[in-house]
């Protein structure tokens, strides 16, 4: 018997490919947003609203990550957004390798902004870097004020939290102050933006944030 020292991170290979993706995207001048959140939080609706608000002013594309199917991709294609669908075949998150395959299907020289809509899940996507420039999480007002304390990692990893379905606030029991204080308890630096993709509330702030990222 012999003992071999391994001393390596289990996600080292993922991080290596994420670095490679990041270099590829940066060299083409593409800003990449990893969009994460629970199933049904409103990630695709946010992108649909973004398509309408941006119109043709920004050249962008979407990589859609789903366990199965291409329902979300079709929603965005209808709005004229170029979409690459990745099916994870059971995996609960996108990893850097899957995104690298997705990038090969895109003409990176023709876009300046890329959204990667991750698999709906508040846990695993937070752990896998994909080569993004920004991490944005979508939490909907219907999910409750306890989520930051239950799933702290995603809140800590994100650069921005979009509180979606803001138009529902008057109809819900959600304690907004409790939610915001839970957010700042687990992730003091996280900015929060209230948005309704349905009514357009907060859309200006969201588009402004995106334009700031684009520089």
């Amino acid at each position: 018997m012999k003992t071999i020292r391994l001393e390596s991170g289990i996600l080292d290979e993922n991080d290596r490919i994420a670095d490679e993706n990041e270099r590829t995207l940066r060299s083409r001048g593409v800003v990449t947003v990893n969009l994460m959140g629970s199933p049904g939080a409103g990630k695709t609706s946010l992108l649909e609203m973004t398509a309408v608000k941006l119109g043709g002013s920004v050249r962008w594309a979407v990589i859609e990550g789903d366990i199965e199917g291409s329902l979300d991709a079709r929603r965005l294609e209808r709005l004229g957004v170029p979409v690459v669908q990745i099916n994870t075949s059971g995996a609960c998150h996108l990893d850097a390798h899957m995104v690298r395959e997705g990038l090969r299907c895109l003409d990176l020289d023709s876009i300046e902004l890329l959204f990667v809509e991750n698999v709906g899940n508040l846990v695993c996507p937070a752990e896998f870097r994909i080569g993004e420039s920004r991490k944005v999480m979508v939490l909907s007002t219907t999910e409750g004020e306890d989520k930051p304390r239950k799933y702290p990692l995603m809140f800590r990893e994100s650069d921005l939290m979009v509180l979606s379905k803001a138009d529902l606030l008057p109809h819900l029991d959600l304690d907004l102050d409790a939610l915001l204080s839970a957010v700042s308890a687990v992730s003091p630096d996280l900015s929060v933006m209230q948005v309704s993709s349905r009514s357009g509330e907060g859309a200006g702030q969201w588009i402004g944030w995106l334009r700031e990222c684009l520089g």
Partner: protein
Amino acid sequence: MHELSIASRILDAIVTGAEAEGALRITRLRVQVGRVSGVSPEALAFAMQVVSPGTRAEGLELDIETVELVLRCRGCSEQSPAESLLFTCPACGGQAVDIVRGRELRLVDMDIDT
């Protein structure tokens, strides 16, 4: 499903490492799993049993070291182990803290038979 994909990565890494050493079997593997790595030690142990049959790692003993969460407070600069996962400084109650330890997902070493 998450631990299953992690287990597949581990298997690829250790089997490649064992082949390079000319090993016939991997008998033991030691890994570190942080409290806030998002990986459940029990689920990882189960997933390794699922992926390893038919490989050099079949039947290996998996030794999982859990790494507790250690925070450094930006306010009082104190570094201390956190008992809960609420990201509050145990010393002063400050909420602006950085994770010092607890996110580990590392392969430490393995025993092989050659």
